[in-house]
């Protein structure tokens, strides 16, 4: 069906994708997970022919190479993309949106049948055929966007973060309708940040990190993979275990990781924190993930001591920590005049976790003052 071989895309000097190879079969849901800027959208845009970068490699649909063809020829080849955001024609009615989806020659004959199919999949669109698409709710607009793509009678339907901005309930409905789409024999390539729900409906998955495919596996295995859990499913307990293992290996990478594991005592870590990544100049998650992937075969999974361990004890140590930290901060204040930028205020180490250097990063506030009578700024 759709096969991408060694696809590389560059925007000028910036390599957005390097030697990416993926494959989607009929009636299969494949999910691509990756952080912001990993190159997910570029991959989809390159496949559908609207990517502006320079590309090399092969994209083959049913034995026909499509890379480098114009976008309308690619649609004729049976590949449809629901772009990121709301992929709708806002000023047109719902019906016009859908009918325009069937603009390609391959879809014209089946327009009526496809329209019926979309309407039965999303009954709400049937009720609102003559509404201007822009005036609909976010979820309904996403239905229009998916409906439009399906009208082109695709063999491969690609969706770029369809759950973006949808409520959890709508998101669930959306993914359920995707399983319905799959039943029609359409291969679905899904790019998502919502790893939990997308892995639940997917057959296979790829991890895309910094322009490379770093891992490929069945969705089930990915969902239980500690690295994936760490990076996309927000499993804090296993994650800290993984980080510990990583630091046990004495590679240079791991030293860096151990150095910058940031502490968030109150909630489990869900989203990678920006400042750590920015400071490092590379993704901490990528490092952690690669470290744990490396260590996974050699070490058994940790017994999740931190999660399974008595919650009370954990809470107590946490509270103790906070108190000492607060006390320390207060003393510091008294000793020094208030500093607007305090790069790092080290917190006393917990005796039971000797390896992980825990660092409290204060938010950075830099004050710039405007020079009078000019537009120049100087740091205060």
């Amino acid at each position, binding site marked *: 069906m759709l096969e991408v071989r060694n696809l590389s895309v560059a925007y000028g000097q910036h390599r957005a994708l390097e030697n990416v190879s993926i494959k989607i079969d009929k009636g299969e849901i494949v999910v691509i997970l990756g952080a912001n800027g990993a190159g997910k959208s570029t991959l989809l845009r390159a496949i559908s022919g609207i990517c*502006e970068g320079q590309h090399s490699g092969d994209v083959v649909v049913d034995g026909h190479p499509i890379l480098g063809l114009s976008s*309308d020829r690619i649609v004729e080849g049976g590949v449809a993309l629901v*772009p990121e955001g709301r*992929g709708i024609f806002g000023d*047109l009615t719902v019906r*016009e949106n859908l*009918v325009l989806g069937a*603009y390609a020659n391959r*879809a014209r004959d089946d327009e009526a049948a496809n329209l019926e199919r979309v309407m039965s999949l999303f009954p709400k669109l049937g009720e609102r055929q003559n509404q201007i698409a822009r005036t609909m709710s976010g979820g309904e607009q996403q239905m229009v966007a998916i409906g439009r793509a399906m009208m082109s009678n695709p063999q491969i339907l690609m969706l770029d973060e369809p759950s973006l901005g949808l409520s959890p309930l709508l998101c669930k409905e959306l993914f359920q309708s995707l399983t319905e789409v799959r039943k029609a024999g359409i291969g679905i390539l899904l790019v998502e940040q919502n790893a939990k729900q997308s892995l639940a409906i997917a057959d296979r998955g790829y991890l895309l990190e910094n322009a490379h495919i770093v891992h490929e596996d069945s969705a089930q295995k990915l969902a239980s993979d500690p690295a994936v859990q760490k990076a996309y499913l927000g499993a804090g307990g296993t994650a800290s275990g993984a980080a510990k293992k990583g630091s046990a290996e004495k590679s240079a990478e791991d030293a860096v990781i151990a150095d910058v594991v940031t502490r968030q005592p109150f909630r489990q870590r869900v989203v990678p924190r920006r400042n750590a990544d920015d400071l490092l100049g590379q993704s901490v998650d990528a490092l952690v993930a690669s470290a744990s992937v490396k260590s996974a075969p050699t070490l058994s999974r940790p017994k999740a001591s931190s999660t399974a361990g008595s919650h009370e004890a954990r809470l107590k140590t946490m509270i103790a920590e906070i108190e000492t930290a607060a006390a320390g901060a207060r003393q510091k204040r008294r000793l020094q005049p208030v500093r607007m930028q305090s790069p790092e205020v080290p917190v006393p180490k917990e005796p039971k976790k000797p390896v992980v250097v825990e660092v409290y990063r204060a938010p950075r506030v830099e004050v710039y003052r405007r020079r009078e009578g000019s537009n120049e700024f100087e740091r205060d």
Partner: protein
Amino acid sequence: MDFLNALVALTNFVIIPATAYGSQLALGALGVTLIYGILRFSNFAHGDTMAFGAMVTILVTWAFQKMGVSIAPLPTALLALPFGIAATAALVIGTDRAVYRFYREKKAAPVTLVIVSMGVMFVMNGLVRFIIGVDDQRFGDGARFIISARDFKEMTGLREGLAIKTSAGLTIITAVIVVAALFWFLNKTRTGKSMRAYSDNEDLALLSGINPERVVMVTWLIVAALATIAGTLYGLDKSFKPFTYFQLLLPIFASAIVGGLGNPLGAIAGGFLIAYSEVAVTYAWKKVLTYSLPESFAPEGLAQLLSTDYKHAVSFVILIIVLLFKPTGLFKGKSV
């Protein structure tokens, strides 16, 4: 007080001329707005495209007149119009291939395309003057009036006459037909819908399998037809002089922007708004006021707000007011 005479005078001197002028502006502004909506730049060459279309139509009209072909009482120019449209279409599509496409493929910024269109404007301007000369050209024939002022007075016994020029009547009727056809095309046909889709969301249009080059070509075809029709009607109604079309660019742009660039309905509304304002502000209201006010209030002066020399200033003022308070135009077009 004599409301009937006041009404006739108003219709004769304000409403009919302004409606005819408004129709011409609307047709011109439709062309500008379509180019803006689909090719995403302000086409400064539009005025001279109109001049070129009108010029070809005039040349063909003269040829017909020499051959003795006529469709009296209608002007022969109507017969020549298709030839003008064909020639203009060839010119603009040729220009697109030779000039605009190069910048489109380079994904040039809209402002670059605007400057490019200015270059095209000067070339077309020179071309028209080179072929037909800079002078006024007469090409109207057929009946001059639908109703002449004298006939009207005899018919109704009123003191004021109502004259409807053939060209004015023709302009209004043609404009209605052309606009109706254009809207039918944009809203009902597959190609028209694909044009609206392309204007609305270019990327998504590409993803839907719409061929952008085809959309662009159809747009130029329609623009050529609109420009030729508007140019010829203007020439019939007033007179054909290449330089006036260059000047017409301002009220045309004002109309398109006031209505909301990229919105066809807005272009029409804008055209009429500009035309009515121009005529109303530069018309000497003395006659109408004398009829409609009690005798003691009758104005002594001309009651003219601005000299007709300043009529272009009116479109400027309206343009500035709209840009200040509603930059997207009355009909929510794209922001300028």
